């Protein structure tokens, strides 16, 4: 689960931290990936190496499909539309019973089977997710330290100047949306095979809620901040075995406090040199 949240946290981090766009569509990509991989496995019997790749591609594609209309909007509308996209998919998943079995959800999803080797037991999953998280962090690092990543930061900090320098903001943001979608789609597929059960609830807001706490408290726009946030906020509630309501309540209070008093997150404490203006967006 921690590994899954590392993927998701980086997915949100690319949007919020590096592009300065508050996207609440992460659960939409996550759910698309989960359903895509599940249905390909159950209906077509594909190997998980294929279904995971497809889930990633579906996530990226969803990012582009959502990005084309929503990125043209004012930034207020953008937030609302990304949130609505997740909710709309939840309605579709609940009502397209022939495909998704509706609100009953899909149970008994087989565990991931990579090139004929099944991932059995917690330790196999732990190793697999550790590798995936490391790859995700590496991929994020590659993206944000490339020309494209620097263009994202440029568009975030000063859009007119970036345009003057020959950067197309729409293309850059679409690319970021696709990366974000790909990571979340992959995370969704892992979630489905790990828990062996999915229902339309995975499109819900609760994932965004945890993610915002992880990414913002960890430090949006830094490479390791969200990773630290993801690890802390999956391990702590487990270790303290909190009731979900109490956990969410604490997350809400934390989020309010961070946003009001500590907009740059924990990363500030470590004196890590932040990219100029990093934070919850400008």
């Amino acid at each position, binding site marked *: 689960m921690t590994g899954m949240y590392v993927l998701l946290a980086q997915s949100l981090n690319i949007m919020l931290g590096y592009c300065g766009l*508050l996207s609440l569509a992460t659960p939409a990509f996550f759910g698309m990936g989960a359903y895509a991989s599940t249905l390909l496995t159950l209906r077509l019997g594909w190997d998980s190496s294929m279904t995971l790749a497809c889930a990633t591609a579906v996530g990226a594609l969803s990012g582009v499909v959502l990005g084309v*209309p*929503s990125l*043209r*909007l*004012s*930034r*207020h*509308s953008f*937030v*609302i*539309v990304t*949130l*609505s996209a997740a*909710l*709309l998919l939840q*309605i579709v998943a609940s*009502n397209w019973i022939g495909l998704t079995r509706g609100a009953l959800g899909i149970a008994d999803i087989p565990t991931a089977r990579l090139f004929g080797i099944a991932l059995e037991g917690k330790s196999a999953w732990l190793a697999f997710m550790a590798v995936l998280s490391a790859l995700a962090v590496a991929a994020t690092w590659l993206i944000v330290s490339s020309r494209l990543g620097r263009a994202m930061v440029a568009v975030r900090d000063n859009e007119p100047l970036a345009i003057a320098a020959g950067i197309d903001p729409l293309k850059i943001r679409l690319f970021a949306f696709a990366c974000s979608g790909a990571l979340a789609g992959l995370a969704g597929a892992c979630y489905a095979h790990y828990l062996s059960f999915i229902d339309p609830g995975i499109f819900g*807001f609760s994932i965004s*809620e945890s993610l*915002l706490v992880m990414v*913002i408290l960890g430090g949006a726009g830094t490479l390791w901040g969200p990773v630290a946030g993801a690890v802390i906020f999956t391990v702590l509630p487990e270790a303290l075995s909190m009731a979900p*309501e*109490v956990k*969410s*309540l604490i*997350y*809400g*209070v934390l*989020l*309010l406090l961070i*946003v*009001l008093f500590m*907009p740059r997150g924990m990363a500030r404490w470590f004196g890590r040199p932040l990219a100029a203006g990093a934070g*919850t*967006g*400008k």
Partner: protein
Amino acid sequence: MDASLFLQFLANGLSVGLGYGLAAVGLALVFGILEQVNFAHGEIYMVGAFTLWFLGQSMGMPYWLGYPVMVAAMAAFGLLLAEVVFLPTLNRPFETVILATLAVSIILQNLVRLVFGATPLHIDSPLDGTTLELGGVLFFGQRIFVAVVAVVALAGLVAFLRRTETGRAMRAMAQNKDACLMVGIDIRRVTRITAAAGAALCALASGAMAPMFDLYPNMGTDVVFKSFAVVIIGGMGNISGAMLAGLLLGVAESFASGMLGATYRDGVGFALMIIMLLLRPQGIFGKSVRV
């Protein structure tokens, strides 16, 4: 479809639509004047309904007394929201406000879940079961009440914004915050009043509509999305636009659920919103007309 069925759908849609409009107007007001999106708007609706239930069940207040008490309590809550969220963030990027109000909505939702549990509750109203038949069309008492409350509240709001000094200051702030400072308008006071008025309008809608539906801690989510759809269709921050868009949504939903089936009802708002965003992102009426 025969004429009386058509009229029945239309009457249902208009009464529900007036309620949607009333709920969304508070959101439009806060957006138009403060230029801030209040994601906790749906939770004001939800907490209002639960407060009304609590006043009726535990304090024995009749509906007619509990309703105004609840609206006053939610207006006070709006003031609190202004102190905690809107005032400290007046000069911060708008994402800060969105995140802060999201946090407030998470807190409220889970508090209510902890206090009241997840079992759906029901509010009794003296109008339950009363109906009025007019030319073959059946009007339910509670729905007529919703429509009356909505019309009176909106007329009151428009009069307030047009005629009073405070209302004029609110409209001035919607146009230009810096110019307000120059002519000596107290922005902090206007912010407080706007937040309280937005919450009170939402509570009015909540109290009038709550007896028609079950209460559950997630109910605010549905309301806030419908309100977002309404506000986007009508033009962000446009008050009369929000009202008309609310009516439009109510009627469209009524016909969709009557003719296609109830599962399509909740999709209608999203579909309208998406079409609107693709074709005319500034909304039907644009931003220019504020009142």
